């Protein structure tokens, strides 16, 4: 029979080769037993890598494998924290820096979101400002601190402007591409049922582009924190970027690393916040969790 020959099956014995079977067994309800047993090593895995790293680090310090100039040990860094805390710098830095980064992120992210949504939905808008934005995006804001002083003065404006500049593009880029990635068929639904532009954006476009948008915000949050370092070169007496800059100037490697760890901790906070947001905002996703 041709139908089968062309389907790659060799014509021949009608009784087939032995079948391999597998047995799967399951008792009880999901969420019990097995699941809990597995969760412990998972948690372990998550903290194992960092803990091992810290151990090795302290060891290399204690055994003088590397000079403290190159990499101060964890204890030295703890001391640095104690010092910063005693002077009150750390307590002062965080709220100030977070406020700056937060304001910039909010303004820049919102602008990026709006621009991204509009460009994603309208070719005209895209033609009008996508190219200029792509050009602006590449500009190294960090190198422009003196110019920002000229343009925005030495007050909070210039600091926040720098952070806005850093956080606008990740959100724009990911929003735009998130929206362009929406299956045309789903936007057709909106057109077919005469949904208003606004309803389409609210109910269809933004929710479906949300995964991409969240990646953009995630990146923007990092960029905003990064922007602090440049922004707090401008007339600041406090802030986590200020601490880093000063430590840099006075060769305090331990404080630099302490500051970096604060950044890393903030990175972790951002991660947790974004993961939570993803859970809250994307309950509908039919995706895998990469088993």
């Amino acid at each position: 029979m041709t139908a089968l020959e062309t389907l790659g099956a060799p014509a021949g014995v009608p009784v087939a080769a032995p079948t391999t079977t597998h047995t799967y067994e399951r008792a009880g309800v999901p969420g019990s037993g097995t699941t809990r047993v597995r969760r412990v090593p998972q948690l372990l895995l998550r903290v194992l890598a960092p803990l091992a790293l810290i151990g090795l680090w302290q060891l290399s310090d204690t055994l003088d494998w590397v000079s403290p100039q190159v990499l101060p040990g964890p204890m030295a860094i703890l001391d640095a924290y104690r010092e910063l805390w005693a002077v009150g710098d750390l307590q002062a830095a965080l709220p100030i820096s977070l406020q700056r980064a937060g304001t910039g992120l909010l303004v820049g992210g919102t602008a990026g979101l709006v621009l991204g949504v509009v460009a994603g939905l309208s070719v005209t808008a895209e033609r009008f400002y996508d190219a200029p934005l792509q050009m602006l995006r590449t500009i190294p804001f960090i190198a422009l601190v003196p110019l920002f002083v000229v343009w925005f003065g030495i007050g909070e404006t210039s600091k926040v402007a720098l952070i806005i500049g850093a956080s606008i593009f990740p959100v724009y880029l990911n929003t735009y591409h998130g929206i362009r990635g929406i299956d045309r068929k789903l936007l057709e639904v909106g057109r077919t049922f005469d949904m208003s532009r606004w309803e389409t954006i609210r109910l269809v476009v933004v929710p479906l582009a949300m995964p991409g948008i969240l990646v953009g915000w995630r990146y923007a949050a990092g960029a905003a924190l990064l922007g602090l370092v440049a922004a707090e070169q401008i007339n600041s007496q406090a802030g986590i970027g200020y601490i880093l800059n000063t430590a840099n100037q006075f060769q305090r490697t331990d404080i630099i690393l302490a500051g970096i760890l604060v950044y890393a901790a903030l990175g972790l906070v951002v991660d947790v916040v974004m993961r939570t947001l993803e859970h809250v905002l994307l309950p509908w996703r039919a995706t895998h969790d990469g088993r």
Partner: protein
Amino acid sequence: MTAADTTPATTPTTTPTTGPAEEVLSHEAVLTGEPVVRLEGLSKSYGEQVILDGIDLTVGRGEFVALLGPSGTGKTTLLRILGRLEDASSGRATIAEKTSVVFQEPRLIQAQRVWRNVVLAAGRGAGARQAAHAALAEVGLADKAQAWPKTLSGGEAQRVGLARALFREPDLLLLDEPFGALDAFTRRKAQDLVLALWQEHQPGVLLVTHDVEESLLLADRVIVLGGGHIQADIRVTTPRPRDTTSPEFNATKREVLAHLSQVSPHVSPDHPAHRDYGKIS
């Protein structure tokens, strides 16, 4: 009329499709209102491939038209043009503005719950949710209102798509195989719903289906599409509800099947499918 009679334009119930569309309107009394669809010389190509080739078609308000044709013949393409989702390559189309579409695949917005999918365009009013619940109840899915689309079965998703389309009161209802994933009983219920809505509000209906019996049970007119042309335009005048066992019904069924077999690319007269088509609707 017999099954052997397969030449389209010679049967009395087949309207010639080459004349101007107005003719169809003028000598047919079934139409209850102004046309909701009028296509004149409508063509559509994808690259080199001509899908629709000079289609003339008029559907009146209150007219129920079924569209049959082999897979890949351009039924969905035609519906998309009628739904203003696709541009034609050439020709003229006059189409009622308020249309409702049941797409061939459910096309639910995954990011919205089932009830919201039903009332997508209904704004934020408190009534929207209640209306959605009622519409869902009609298709037997009252308990799925709060579910996410990804958790629906194939037939459930299709019914949500149907509820969404029927929720509006369109002038033109475009249905692309809306009952394909439903079992016999659920399907019958959905058919009743469409019929009831149609009788109440008199939209023009264009129903794409592969089920010849279904088309003959529901429609006033059965159109067979093939090779880019309307191959047959058969009027069904038996009053509803129709009896599938009546001789007229089966004669029309055989006629439609004959037209279909003519345009089916893989069917030679001695192919078993041809021989058995009576059994496989």
